């Protein structure tokens, strides 16, 4: 029998029972739609996160205290001394600059408005490393640092909230935890990032933060060190140099390090792994609904075989072989799932689009990405579902005895 004609005939048959075919197709539409949407959202999340990580620069190292991979007893905190040692040109020739970071939260107040923000205490090098630019004013200076100055650079979100504008604020004073600070600069907006919005932060000199805002138990303790490497190629070398210096200073030449050095590549690979697992998880859950849709096809095909027993008997009397009947029913079930799959791809695309819009509206720009792979996968998978769940009913139809089938009422 001619395949094209068989497909036409199958469509005619399905068309003969519109509501039933429609509902069966709906099961597959929802299944495929969910798979496509979930894969797209997972892929979009991955793109956004890796994009944000790529944005932090390829030649940065992040040093923090403690070891995330192995247990280590009494890890020593990082200190300003460590920062200075790493900054030593001769001990670490591949390191361009080091910025110590100390972070906490504080309430800032100005003109009667109060907001809770993240406070970062650091050195002037930090601004260069972070690629910040200013709307107006200046970054913190070496003088600010040495003079324990009450100077602050504020993010645009803080300016909006406290002053209602982003210009002409330099020179104004704000209170951080009740202590007066003079604004020296306003940062350009960087938007939301992986590590929270960078717009709602204030940056003060490390020395000022340490003595007046953020108290740490150990003298000169820092939370993190940002290390700028001379070039992206030198990152492995610089990592080794930093590790050597810290091992010496922390007296752990053998055994487990009590600190961790992360590069951008490390962050990228972790983020990719995490979002990959996340995508598989979402896709797997959506896959369950596709499975349910497939069972729906099987159910309806079984009903159809029973209903059309006489027709099957007649076809056999007219010379249809087992294979002809098998193919006829398999084509019907594949048509159901294929049509469902195609509509499902559209639905998934629509869902992804809507999620993207909602994310954009809530301030976290995010592009669900529908890859060609996902579409191919969903199409193949839905056709396979139709075939797989169609085989049993089709086999049953093909195996009917012509005499019995013709006699069936």
């Amino acid at each position, binding site marked *: *029998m*001619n395949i094209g*004609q068989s497909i036409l*005939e199958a469509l*005619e*048959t399905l068309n*003969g029972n519109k509501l039933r075919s429609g509902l069966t197709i709906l099961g597959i539409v929802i299944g495929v739609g969910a798979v496509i949407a979930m894969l797209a959202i997972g892929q979009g999340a991955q793109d956004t996160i890796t994009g944000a990580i790529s944005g932090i620069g390829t030649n940065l190292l992040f040093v923090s205290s403690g070891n995330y991979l192995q247990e280590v007893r009494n890890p020593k905190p990082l200190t300003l001394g460590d920062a200075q040692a790493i900054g030593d040109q001769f001990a670490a020739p591949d390191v361009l600059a080091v910025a110590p970071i100390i972070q906490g939260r504080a309430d800032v107040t100005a003109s009667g408005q109060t907001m809770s923000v993240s406070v970062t205490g650091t050195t002037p090098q930090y601004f260069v490393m972070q690629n910040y630019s200013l709307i107006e004013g200046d970054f913190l200076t070496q003088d600010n640092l040495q003079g324990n100055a009450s100077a602050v650079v504020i993010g645009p979100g803080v300016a909006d909230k406290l002053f209602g504008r982003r210009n002409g604020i330099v020179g104004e004073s704000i209170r951080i935890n009740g202590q007066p600070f003079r604004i020296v600069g306003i940062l350009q907006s960087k938007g939301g990032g992986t590590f929270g919005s960078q717009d709602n932060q204030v940056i003060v000199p490390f020395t000022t933060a340490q003595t007046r805002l953020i108290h740490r138990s150990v003298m000169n303790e820092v939370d993190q060190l940002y290390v700028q490497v001379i070039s992206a190629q030198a990152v492995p070398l610089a990592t080794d140099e930093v590790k050597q210096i810290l091992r010496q200073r922390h007296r752990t030449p053998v055994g487990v390090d009590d600190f961790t050095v992360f590069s951008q590549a490390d962050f990228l690979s972790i983020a990719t792994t995490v979002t990959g697992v996340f995508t598989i998880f979402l896709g797997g859950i959506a896959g369950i609904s596709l499975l349910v849709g497939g069972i729906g096809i099987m159910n309806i095909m079984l009903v159809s075989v029973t209903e059309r027993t*006489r*027709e099957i008997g*007649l*076809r*056999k*009397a*007219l*010379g*249809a*072989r*087992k*294979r*002809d009947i098998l193919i006829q029913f398999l084509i019907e079930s594949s048509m159901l799932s294929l049509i469902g799959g195609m509509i499902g791809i559209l639905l998934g695309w629509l869902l992804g689009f809507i999620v993207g819009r909602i994310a954009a509206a809530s301030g976290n720009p995010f592009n669900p990405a529908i890859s060609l792979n996902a579409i191919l996968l969903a199409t193949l998978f839905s056709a396979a579902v139709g075939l797989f769940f169609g085989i049993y009913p089709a086999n049953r139809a093909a195996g009917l*005895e*012509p*005499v019995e089938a*013709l006699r069936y009422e």
Partner: protein
Amino acid sequence: MAKDLVIHAEDLKKVYQMGQVEVHALAGVSCNIQRGEVVAIMGPSGSGKSTLMNILGCLDLPSSGKYVLDGEPVETLSDDQLADIRNRKVGFIFQSFNLLSRTTALANVELPLRYAGKVPDRRERARGALESVGLGDRMTHRPTELSGGQQQRVAIARALVNNPAIIMADEPTGNLDSKVGKEILELLLTLNRDNGTTLIIVTHDQAIATHAQRIIHLRDGLVEEK
């Protein structure tokens, strides 16, 4: 002589297992039918005439015995080979017409040709068959739009379309009123006269049987000698 023997059956037996009991639907039936003959198979219900028709029409295989249809021994064939024989050598006409209700008269008549493999002039042959039963103007109608007599004519066209060696009609007029039934019978007999198609009619209507050249009476699975 042997060439003109379209059906040669020897000692056909069919045994059904009904739970503990063996039912002998056919207890050893032998018959020969010549090409171009009109034969009626008669008998009370339960006499085995449906079973005999199913076996002669290759819908079913005998439990034992020998059956040669148009020169081809049938009793050893596989399911697919049987399907092929049914397609090429047998045309069926049923009491309840058994047309596919979703498709047109033309598509119904085409159906056997579609299972016959590559037939280039399928549509033309189906048209020709419909015209020969007087339905040339009803080709695109669906069975629900046709009267009972017209539906049976479509079924006859479908039985004819592959030029089978025999046509098996199972109570062909059973669902029709006597006037239309007569017309259908006339049509079948005309086809027999004009084309020389062998016609086997299963019936218990004596009026129909009188038109046959020969009557095979069955009783309790055996041919009743008269």
